[in-house]
Each structure stands twice: as C-alpha cells, then as structure tokens.
C-alpha cells in the first residue's frame, strides 16, 4: 500500500500523462470541445488503460520473458490491446445501450493511442508488479480525465472570448493547454 499511493498521486499530478508527458494529445484536443464527451472519453480511457495494463503485464511476464522475445513487445502489445478493446466494445454494444451511448464510440478511437501504449511501456520500464500496473493505469486514466474536463471547461469559454481571428479554435487551445500544463507542474511539483 505504501508504494501504491505515491504511484497513484504521481500519475495524476506531476506525471500527468497528457499535460506533463505529452502522450494522448489527439483525443485530448479532439474531444475537449464540450464537457459531455470529455467525461465519456475520460472514463473510456481509464477503462482501456486498466485492461491494457493487465493484459500486457500478463503477456510480458508469461510469454515475453519465458521465451526471451522481449523485442516483440511493441507488436504484441498493439495486437493484444486492440483485440481486447474490440471485444469489450462488442460486449458493451450488445448488452448495455446506455453505456454504449455514453462511451461506446470512443473506445475504437483510443485503442492504440500513444497514451495507452506509452503507459504499458512505462509499466515495463519501471518493472511494476501486476497491482502496481493496475494502479498506474488507473491513475493515468484519472489524470487524463481531469485534464480533459479542465480543458473542455476552458475551451467552452474560449469559444466566445475575443480571440484574434488567426488564433481561433485549435491555436488558442494549445496555448491554454500549455498554461494548464505549467500550472500542473509548478503547483503540484511544489506540493508533492
């Protein structure tokens, strides 16, 4: 327990996967225009990160290490994660229409996002146990969700703000994200 809490808090604040590590910028800027999709995307990303952490940890420990084929980890992780997400999406689509409406369409979009893959590579590099990997994934997903919710609230206001014509839309969103990232690093870096 005394290792899990630091991992969890670190992934949300000072090692935030999108604001500090710059992974997963595509869905971050793509879905952050409104609050509703932002929340759905955050939940979908958390779910996929946990599934991916579990599956890749199993593959890594029981297949890659056993057969000494560590160099194949990129290909195998992509294969396994996309298959699992496909199965999860199929199951959700056919069993629970409300849940599907909430986050179904985002699942195929983030299947092999660099955030998901990057997280699994982090798990390998830090040599986490299964439980630590799960907490890592959970923290990263929640960190992504928080950053996304903050960003969507900012962008809703930026839509009606007086922005120069050439900066409207994505450029000013990037600058907003930069400022948000600076806040995250300096505030939380000082506290944690």
């Amino acid at each position, binding site marked *: 327990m005394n290792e899990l809490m630091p991992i969890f808090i670190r992934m949300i604040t000072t090692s935030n996967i999108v604001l500090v590590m710059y992974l997963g910028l595509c869905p971050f800027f793509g879905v952050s225009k409104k609050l509703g999709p932002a929340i759905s995307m955050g939940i979908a990303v958390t779910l996929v990160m946990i599934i991916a952490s579990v599956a890749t940890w199993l*593959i890594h420990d029981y*297949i890659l290490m056993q*057969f*000494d*084929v560590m160099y*194949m980890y990129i*290909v*195998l992780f992509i*294969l*396994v994660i996309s*298959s699992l997400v*496909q*199965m999860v999406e*199929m*199951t959700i*689509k*056919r*069993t629970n*229409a409300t849940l*599907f*409406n909430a986050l179904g*369409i985002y699942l195929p979009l983030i299947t092999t996002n660099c955030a998901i893959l990057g997280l699994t590579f982090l798990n390998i590099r830090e040599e986490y146990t299964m439980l630590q990997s799960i907490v890592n994934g959970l923290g990263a997903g929640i960190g992504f969700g928080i950053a996304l919710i903050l960003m969507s609230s900012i962008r809703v206001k930026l839509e009606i703000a007086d922005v120069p014509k050439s900066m409207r839309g994505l450029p000013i969103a990037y600058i907003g994200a930069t400022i948000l990232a600076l806040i995250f690093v300096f505030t939380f870096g000082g506290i944690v």
Partner: protein
Amino acid sequence: MVITILVLTGIGLFAAVLIYVVNVVVPHKVMGLEKTEEINTILPGMNCGACGYPSCFAYAQAITEPKALSCCGTGKDEDVLTKSPCATLLEDEESVKELEKALGVTLDVSALGKKALIHCTGDSEVICDYAGIETCKGAAQLLSGYKKCPWACSGLGDCVRVCLQDAIFIDEEKDIVVIDQEKCNGCGLCIPECPLDLIELVPSGTKISFLCSYEPIRDIPGREKCAYGCTHCRKCFKACEEEGIHAIEWDKEKALPIIDQDKCTLCGKCIEVCEPNTLGDFTKANKPKVAVLSH
C-alpha cells in the same frame, strides 16, 4: 527466429478466436439498436461529417433515438432529417426510398438538397504575376489576391483539394474554379476553404444565381473592378416586374437584387437584360468549361 514466428502467430490466432467467440456468444440483438443498425446500413458510411455528426452511425442514432427534451425542435425524427440532411444520401434515389420506408416518413429531396455556388466569375483583370505559394489562402494574404477585384476567385484550388466528389475544376484560361453541379452533393466541405468566403450553400432548387461578391467600397460600383460586376442599374428588377412575376426585389442598402427562387419561373428575362452578365442560370451550371454564365 522460429520462436518469434510461433509466439506471434500463436497470440494472433488466440486473439482472433477469442473475438470470434465473443461475437457468437454475446447476444446480437440489443433493444433499441436494431433500428439504428438498420438505418446505418442505408447510410453511405463515408463518415464525412457533412451532416454535423461525427459518424454515420451517430447520425443513425440521432434519427432513431430523438431526445424528448430537445431544446430545438419537437424531438421528432423529421427534425434531424430536415435540419441536417445527409447530403450524399439525397443524391441516391434508391437509398432515399429505403430510408423513407424504414422510417415511415417522406422526404422532399429538392427542398433538402443543397449545392455549392461560387459567387464569382473571376473575370477581373490580373494586375500582377503571382509567384508565391500556390494556395488561395496564400494569394489572399497579398492584398486579397492578384486580380483587380478584392473578392475575385484566384483559381489556385484550395476548394478543389477538399472536394470528396471531385466536383470542382480549375478553369485554366480564366484562372477560376468551377463547380460541376451534377457531381456536387452539397456537403459544404469547400466552404471554409475559400479565404474570401465566395462559396455558399444554396438549395438545389435554386434557379437564378447572382455571381458577384463585390461590396462597394467608397461607392465604387463593382463594374470598375471587373467586366461582370453589378452596376446597380436595376434592370433585372424592372424586367421581372414587367413580366408580372415579381420574383426579384431590390435591396436598397446594398444596392443588389434579392431573388425569390420559389416565385421565379426561369423565363430568363433578367439574364437577358443584365448587361454585365452578373446573373446566371443556375440550372445550366453543369458543364464545367463554360462557367455559370448563359451567353
């Protein structure tokens, strides 16, 4: 080497079998999504986004599951279909019939269909030899283009590049772009591309098109900049009145005609009378070579 192949193949096969098993085992029919799936098969499946929804599946969902407390409209199916129609679907008559049968509604294609219209014949005098970056947006940065009229189409093809239907052509002689109205499905992807905002989505039932975007600066009429600019002579307005049709009204502020496409009978008098040929016959706009004028 062998182990690599075995491991990769093994895991790939395992994943494939698992997906197949899940596909077969998990019950196929979900309450509520059957209708959506049915509509989804009728839709083009291009996910072009012209209707405003992120994918064809999302559009199908919007049609079949209207929100009861929608803030705009009464929440019925027809509202989504009329407010944001699927442009590609409307081109295909069979699909329209299938959709009508599936939903139990009738669609008025000519009222819903849209076409893109360029409000420029581009015949303005060329005042410099443009040697910059070959995009319209680049040319527009330089004093609004290399032609005398600041609203002239520069013909460098930003809109051509985004058209999914290949409906836009560059007319090399005149250095403008021309839209082939037969191929255009009104998706509107070309509209944000034009830096001078020359393209407009008009209903496909439009008959007469006004082909100049010039806004008089310091009272210099459009005629000064281009041979096809409006001279504000009001002959079109008078000709329509004399015919008794009254389809053209005169906007006094902008000094331009306003055409009521429903009342227009396409008699052609206004086009005949217009000296600078600013008014064009929209229904004849199919041949790419001879722009949209009816000489």
